[in-house]
């Protein structure tokens, strides 16, 4: 009897979560893993939808070589400039949101109002409204135009780099708008550093500058990594991205191949972020 109870207990111990997680797992299999593998499968096949069902015909690496070596229109003319643009946007967003979060963390009069303002873009930046602002040139910084920085840049830099930089500058304000969630994450992260650490540093005679570099920044490194990952994921799916535009439900095979190339680039970018920031994030002596 007692052994039965023990067995029952270990069983519930081991499997009690299954009922709560089961829906998620079913959903994962249905809506994530199946489509994922199917899309990989489609990228090697020519897919035709007929009256009798869906026909697949194996074509091997044809679509991939098309994208990368032969046609290349979408990949080299649209995707690569977009990636260069993103390369600039990621650090801008992360650094900006870090600064704003540090400032918003101070106690000062009107803090709530400022917080509300800086989270406001969370509402706008996820939708099509931002496209409307972009198309009306509402993301520009006035002083950049005054000093005609764009023309200077395009004179001194090769075209492949000046175009994305100018594009970034032209929509600078809206890029800052993409940092709503990141500011939130940094703010929440800042709360995890206990004030006693700061007190101790002050007693030891550290000045504000040192405190920032020796305590705040190292302790926030995991959040920098987290936010970089979030920003990468967010930017790669944002409206107005050339890949989103080229997904059309008529050419299943080629589009799937393109999407997989794109996905591999995202994974590569994330891997790079982990490589660059991961060690710094892990190397912090500070433990939560």
């Amino acid at each position, binding site marked *: 009897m007692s052994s039965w109870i023990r067995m029952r207990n270990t069983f519930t111990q081991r499997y009690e*979560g*299954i009922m709560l*997680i089961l829906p998620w797992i079913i959903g994962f299999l249905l809506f994530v893993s199946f489509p994922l593998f199917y899309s990989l499968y489609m990228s090697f096949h020519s897919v035709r939808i007929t009256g009798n069902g869906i026909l697949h015909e194996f074509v091997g690496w044809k679509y991939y070589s098309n994208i990368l070596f032969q046609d290349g229109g979408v990949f080299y003319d649209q995707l690569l400039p977009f990636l260069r643009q993103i390369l600039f946007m990621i650090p801008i967003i992360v650094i900006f949101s870090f600064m704003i979060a540090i400032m918003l963390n101070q106690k000062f009069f009107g803090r709530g109002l400022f917080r509300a303002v800086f989270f406001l873009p969370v509402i706008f930046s*996820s939708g*099509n409204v931002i496209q409307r602002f972009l198309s009306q040139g509402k993301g520009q910084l006035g002083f950049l135009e005054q000093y005609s920085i764009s023309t200077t840049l395009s004179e001194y830099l090769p075209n492949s780099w000046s175009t994305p930089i100018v594009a970034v500058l032209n929509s600078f304000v809206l890029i800052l708008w993409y940092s709503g969630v990141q500011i939130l994450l940094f703010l929440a992260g800042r709360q995890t550093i206990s004030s006693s650490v700061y007190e101790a540093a002050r007693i030891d005679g550290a000045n504000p500058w040192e405190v920032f570099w020796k305590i705040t920044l190292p302790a926030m490194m995991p959040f920098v990594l987290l936010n970089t990952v979030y920003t990468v994921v967010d930017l790669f799916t944002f409206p107005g991205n050339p890949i989103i535009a080229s997904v059309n439900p008529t050419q299943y095979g080629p589009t799937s191949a393109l999407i997989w190339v794109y996905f591999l680039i995202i994974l590569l970018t994330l891997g790079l972020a982990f490589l660059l920031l991961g060690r710094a994030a892990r190397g912090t002596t500070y433990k939560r």
Partner: protein
Amino acid sequence: MEKILNVIRQRHSRSGFNGLGERLRLLLLGREADKGLIFRLFIYVLLIETAYLYLNPIFYMMSTMVKGLPDLLDPTVNWIPKTIYWGHLKEAWTSLNYPVSFSISAALSIGASLLQLIACAMAGYAFAKLNFPFKKFWLACLIFTFIIPPQVTVLPLILMYREVGWVDTYLPMIIPTLFGHGLKGALYVIIYRQFFSVLPKELEEAAKMDGASMYRVFFKVMLPIAKPAIVVVFLFSFVWNWNDSYSPMMFLFKLQDVPLSVALVKATAAATTEDGQIFAQSIEMAKSFLSVMPPLVLYIFTQRWFVEGVERTGLVE
């Protein structure tokens, strides 16, 4: 008396200028980075400046949409129109088919966010506190789900939904949320997981000791405590579902009655051909305003709990 004053004077002259400088330095720079006067001032200037930059497009939207013809042509009118003209809003209202598309958007995003709020909480709680086979593997799947762009899976999903006859219905936006997926579902699971994993173990143990089943523990004890996380997830989910035009565009081919986000895209395509260029911007802005107004209103009312919630969830890994 004279003696005392002398002592004070002496002391003053000894520390003298130095002490004053020290005090001034303290006042201006502060003991810590955030305490000094200069720093305060600097922060205010910086914040006001960035806040202005930030809000500039929104101000532009508000002012442009109520400018009538005379104000648009008048170069002296920059921000504040002389007369408020409601015509653009009226036109945007009809071109968006506002009452219909608003109701669809509202129903879809409220439904999806309520389902995500509960389903993701279940998954998040299981990931944080319960045991099940291959937990590490599923956790890796969760993180993987988070980084997959929706574009990767959208084509197979279209085929799949076509097979079961869900294309041109609203089901593709709702059914995945029932399982804790749907738009950014993985993120919400991660948020809940983070929230539940910092709660003390004693809480559920006490409930279990009293003989409550796992379901009861979850719905009666854990979910009610999770209010901060719920607010955050609900608001995110509502706003993102409201603004999402991608999946409705992919799954609704022939449907006449579309959510607001899709109506916004379609209405633009129609407007560029007709109409004078002068009004185009104003009408665009009026449409944009109409489509973001509902989440904006929601945000204004919930913003306080939202910010608090974010801080208390420890929304972080």
